[in-house]
């Protein structure tokens, strides 16, 4: 039985009570939360034994009760607690982004290698049921070669999003998942990157060079592959929209919220109602983490994958900042076209 410590803050841990009871060969033994009251509540909801206000405290007091650490904080630099856990000999699942820079990611990957522990880059978007179906069809050859990937991700300006917009480095949190999805679908990193952005908010509330309410990235992949990804944080409260379509050389896949809506005719007039996506993706990701530890094998999402997504996200930011398209150079990294 793998004993897991959950490290989170904000609303990041809200989903776990509905997730952990479905895990096989694992149990949650501890919870880390900066607010002791919230931490105790999570401990109760997931039937854990211990709580702590910091990972340092947990590892010092209850380290022997933990085999693996799941880091799911909202916007902090994930590499800091991850590095601490790795050096304590714990297997680690780090929700994206793995780190706030490629340099920091490299350091974390090396630390995990030296400690001989599992470092899995969390990317729950890969475990969303609709994305799994698209990837299965692609891998089975049903769609032919991936040709054009289009992703829309629209969100409301939640407190988390507003906070992220105030910090240039937190730009990664907004875009790294989509970059990873693109790399995953094409099986490599893009050889061209071009991106543009818009402040987005009508009230002009934007601080820092990455303070965008809206951006779009245009990626080129080898053999004519291409991807367009757009993100906004200007949707009304509680309104999200996500769409992924993949045009392949032999077929196409459309995973679009637009296809999955219901209509409600109530007192407030006609409304669109979406079914909840549930937590299956979180269960699948966490179970995968547990399984690879159990079976002592490599995760399907490696630190290198996470590093690649961060590198592309950084390049997107650079393109926005400079107005130049960027091209991949031999040995990694990008330069202006």
């Amino acid at each position: 039985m793998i004993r897991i410590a959950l490290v989170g803050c904000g609303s990041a841990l809200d989903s776990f009570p509905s997730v952990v009871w479905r895990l096989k060969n694992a149990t949650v033994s501890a919870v880390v939360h900066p607010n002791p009251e919230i931490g105790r509540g999570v401990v109760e909801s997931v039937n854990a034994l211990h709580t702590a206000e910091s990972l340092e405290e947990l590892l010092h007091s209850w380290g022997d009760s933990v085999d693996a650490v799941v880091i799911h904080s909202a916007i902090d630099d994930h590499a800091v607690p991850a590095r601490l856990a790795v050096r304590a000999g714990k297997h680690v699942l780090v929700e994206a982004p793995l780190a706030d820079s490629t340099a920091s990611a490299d350091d974390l990957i090396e630390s995990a290698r030296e400690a001989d522990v599992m470092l899995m880059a969390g990317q729950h978007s890969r475990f969303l049921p609709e994305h799994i179906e698209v990837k299965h069809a692609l891998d089975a050859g049903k769609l032919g070669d991936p040709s054009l990937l289009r992703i829309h991700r629209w969100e409301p300006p939640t407190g988390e999003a507003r906070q992220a917009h105030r910090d240039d480095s937190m730009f990664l949190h907004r875009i790294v998942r989509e970059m990873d999805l693109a790399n995953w679908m094409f099986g490599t990193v893009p050889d061209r990157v071009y991106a543009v952005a818009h402040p987005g908010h009508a009230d002009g509330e934007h601080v820092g060079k990455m303070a965008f309410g809206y951006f779009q990235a245009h990626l080129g992949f080898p053999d004519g592959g291409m991807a367009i990804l757009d993100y906004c944080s200007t949707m009304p409260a509680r309104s999200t929209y996500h769409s992924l379509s993949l045009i392949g050389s032999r077929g196409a896949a459309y995973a679009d919220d637009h296809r999955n809506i219901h209509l409600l005719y109530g007192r407030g007039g006609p409304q669109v109602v979406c079914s909840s996506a549930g937590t299956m993706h979180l269960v699948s990701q966490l179970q995968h983490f547990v399984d690879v530890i159990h079976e002592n094998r490599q995760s399907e999402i490696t630190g290198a994958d996470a590093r690649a997504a961060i590198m592309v996200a950084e390049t997107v930011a650079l393109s926005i900042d400079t107005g130049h398209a960027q091209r991949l150079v031999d040995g990694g990294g990008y330069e202006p076209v």
Partner: protein
Amino acid sequence: MNRSDSEAVYRVAVLSVVKHSYVPNGVLSHPRFEPVVVADDPTEPDWVHERNELYAREIGVPYLRDVGAALVDYGAEVAVVSSAAERHVSLSLRAADAGLHIVQDKPMSTDLSECDRLVQAVEQANVKFLMWNRNFLPAVLRAQELMRSGEIGEPLAFHVDFYFSKDAGPPKGSRQPGDPPIKWIDRQIEAHADGSDGGVGVKPMGELEVEGIYPLAYIRLLAGADVQRVYARMASQFHQAHVDNEVDDLASVTLEMEGGLLGTICIGRIGADSHPEIGEIKIHVVGSEGGMVISESRPEVGIYYRGQPPAEYRHLRVANENDVLLAENFLRAIETGGDTILDARGSRAICATVHAAIRSGQSGAPVVVDCLD
């Protein structure tokens, strides 16, 4: 040539109809346009004359191998041009010089300098010009209404997917060693039978050049802004004819517009097996206070039955008044002196955007669009 009699019927000369009969048919769906002649140049090849003659018989008017005579001798007031793409401007210029209002098929031209000539000619002759488009589809009109309502705040970005799930000859990779490359014009003539010959012309044209006007016209309508800079990727992914002629059948374009507005289009002739309907055609608009997702094909009705021919459309658009509303828009422009929904300058702006995107796709760098003053 403005008429005072608001109930008068305008006499229409159809100048070549080798590409799309739906353009003259669309104009003639309006009760105040009537055909008087079909014409083309005598130097055109036999297959062109055969197709023109067939159409002239269908609509019950004479066919002339003399464009000049058709423009003068039949009292025509309107010319409808649907020739091979390279000849669009030549025919439209002659119509403008003869004082006829013009409805033209897309693209405006394969050469941007030709577009400039036509803009100048239309404005000097003081005639009206309409580039045939789809901006009066019910879903597009609805999108425009929603934009105007302010429901999503100020617009930030416009995205259009414009995928036709059609085949275009043999699939990519089907050419055997020793086989000659497919000639573009041969492929287009061959495609007449199934109506998929959107790229008729001697010069090969990619999907972006052939169909790009539609998504760009949507964005131009909704944004009310011209595109200033583009970044594009293009590929030949599906059809051997496109591979052999080194033109795209799939493209994506980043658009940077006036006022900081942004956008993208994704366009492709993605193959008949890639979508259950005619294709995924959607408009996404991001605003400062929300967003909207519009299916361009709606409203539609689905019809399925045992023994249904594979090529028969299962999903049929309904309540589509695009043709007659375009014709009405053209008529109003003639009679009121106003602009058409896609006039010569607007068409030229779209053509410039497409040409800039093609250059960007070739260079891998963003390209500034060559805008008129």
